[in-house]
């Protein structure tokens, strides 16, 4: 039987190389100016995040006693330039924004990936197997979706946050740094909030796809369910999923910054965009400059992701 399958595998149509496929989608995206603009914004922040250690900027945690809450384009007597000004501890805002993009993209990306993996696993198995498993997954999904998202995060983070037994276990017994502990707990919270939505979308797509002939063919060939789900079902559901992942990454980015703003996010010295806003807010009108830049940063990143998703959707509808 295994030999039979091995023999049949070359019968699959040869797949176009991943690089070629990617190049083709980029070429398609050029037809949507809105999508291109979104891609540009996202790319800008990705380059900033990756390039942060190599850019000629001050360290994000370095404090300058002489320049606290300086306005933008401030030149110090010693010649140091604060292009975007400084925060309430005299830290360079430009540098904090750039290092912050690294933080937010990393944790938002990781959280989205984890949430997506869990959601896809649950959705594809629920849709393909059906029966009691589907009932259970759908019910649990409905229960979680009944929570307003922020309320769910508040419940999870207040009860299982870094200062709870779970947080202490991660920090003391596993020896993780405060940033990683918060990050892991945030990822868990985001997964609880996001995976049910992903699962619901994937399940819907799978219910439609599983009536197709090629699935029947694979079943007749005697493929294992796991193979059918991963090789046949998921790749064919990718179109809507890529668009959704883009939007979802935007929501998760907002969530991470929002939790930072609400003092539930990454711990203090880290340059978290949301935290930067809440720190500067205490200072009223003097803190305005330090509040505005992170607000622009998060807005531009999320706008980029949303426009990119829009462009991708436009393209996918065209063919």
């Amino acid at each position, binding site marked *: 039987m295994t030999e039979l399958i091995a023999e049949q595998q070359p019968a699959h149509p040869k797949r176009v190389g991943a690089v070629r496929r990617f190049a083709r989608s980029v070429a398609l995206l050029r037809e949507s100016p809105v999508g291109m603009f979104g891609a540009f914004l996202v790319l800008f922040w990705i380059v900033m995040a990756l390039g942060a250690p190599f850019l000629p900027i001050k360290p994000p945690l370095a404090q300058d006693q002489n320049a606290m809450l300086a306005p933008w384009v401030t030149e110090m007597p010693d010649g140091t330039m604060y292009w975007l000004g400084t925060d309430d501890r005299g830290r360079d805002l430009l540098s904090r924004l750039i290092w912050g993009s690294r933080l937010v993209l990393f944790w938002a990306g990781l959280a989205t990936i984890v949430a997506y993996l869990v959601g896809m696993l649950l959705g594809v198995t629920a849709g393909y197997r059906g029966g009691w498993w589907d009932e259970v997954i759908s019910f649990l999904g409905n229960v979680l979706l009944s*929570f307003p998202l*922020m309320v769910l995060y*508040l*419940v999870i983070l207040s009860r299982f946050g870094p200062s709870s037994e779970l947080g202490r276990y991660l920090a003391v017994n596993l020896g993780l740094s405060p940033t990683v502990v918060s990050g892991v707990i945030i990822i868990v919270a985001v997964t609880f909030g996001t995976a049910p939505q992903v699962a619901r979308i994937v399940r819907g797509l799978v219910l439609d796809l599983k009536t197709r002939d090629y699935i029947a063919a694979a079943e007749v060939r005697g493929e294992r369910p796991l193979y059918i789900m991963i090789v046949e079902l998921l790749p064919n559901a990718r179109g809507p999923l890529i668009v959704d992942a883009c939007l979802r990454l935007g929501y998760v980015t907002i969530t991470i910054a*929002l939790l930072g703003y609400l003092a539930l996010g990454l711990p203090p010295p880290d340059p978290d965009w949301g935290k930067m806003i809440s720190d500067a807010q205490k200072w*009223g*009108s003097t803190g305005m400059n330090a509040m505005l830049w992170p607000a622009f940063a998060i807005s531009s990143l*999320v*706008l980029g992701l949303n426009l990119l998703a829009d462009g991708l959707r436009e393209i996918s509808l065209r063919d």
Partner: protein
Amino acid sequence: MLHLAARRFASMVIIMLTISFVLFVIFEGDKFNVATKVLGQYTTMDQRLRWLENNGYNDPFFFRYLRWLWNFIRGDFGNSIQFNVPVSRLLWDHLVNTGILAFFVFIITMSIALVLGVLSGIAEGTLRDRAISIGSVICTSVPEFASATILVAIFVFWLDWLPGTSPFVSGFSGRELVLPVAVLVIYNFGYYTRMTRASMAEVMTSQYVRTAVLKGLPRRRVVIRHALRNALIAPFTVMVLQLNYLLSGVIVVEVFFSYKGFGKLIYESALFGDIYLTSACTMVAVFVAVLSQFISDVGYTLLNPRIRFS
């Protein structure tokens, strides 16, 4: 119809029961944690054990859950640890404030979204349509705390027109309500607009609208009498469903503007570790969310004659 409503109602009750149980396990499953939270960190084990004994925490777990649930249904949520007053009184005051906020947000968002959505939906693909679409994407992309920052910078610090916080210290004030409402409207109207647009665009390509146009009816009449009534079904249900997301935004906005509402209450209670208040607030929030789902489902069938009469 009644059958469907009954089924939806049953599933709503089951979901509420499940969530109440989960919340009970999360917040009161570990009774020593409860005692620590109520009595404070610097109490001896002896004091905690005595407190647990006196307050019936040594009863069997399931029995405790049922008693908790029964108190909940009667509206007795216990005393707030932080404020030391009955939770129900706190809840009620703050809910009223949030109700005022949500009412204005809902009305204004709906009006803007319907007008813009219809305007762009009846002229799909035109410059106007594209401008409205892009405008709504931009507004939806700016998170509430970012747009709040930008609005405060403009209207509070630069133009000095409005107050930057809304604590209602000297009673209700319309001026203090403007910015919180504006922030929530800006964030939410984009999504509703796109829903209305999609629904309107779909209806405009339908057979009966074409018939109405070919009959020679004036365009205004076609849009208002024939298209609009059908196009509004989907957006209506979505808007009710979105109450869930609105509530998330309400938390942020209320914290930002120190508006004394439900969102700020649940946030502060969660941060303080006031478990009775947090669990009561969470139950209320979930109840509103589930109820809005129920209304949306039943409303959809009531509004849609094709389902109503079948």
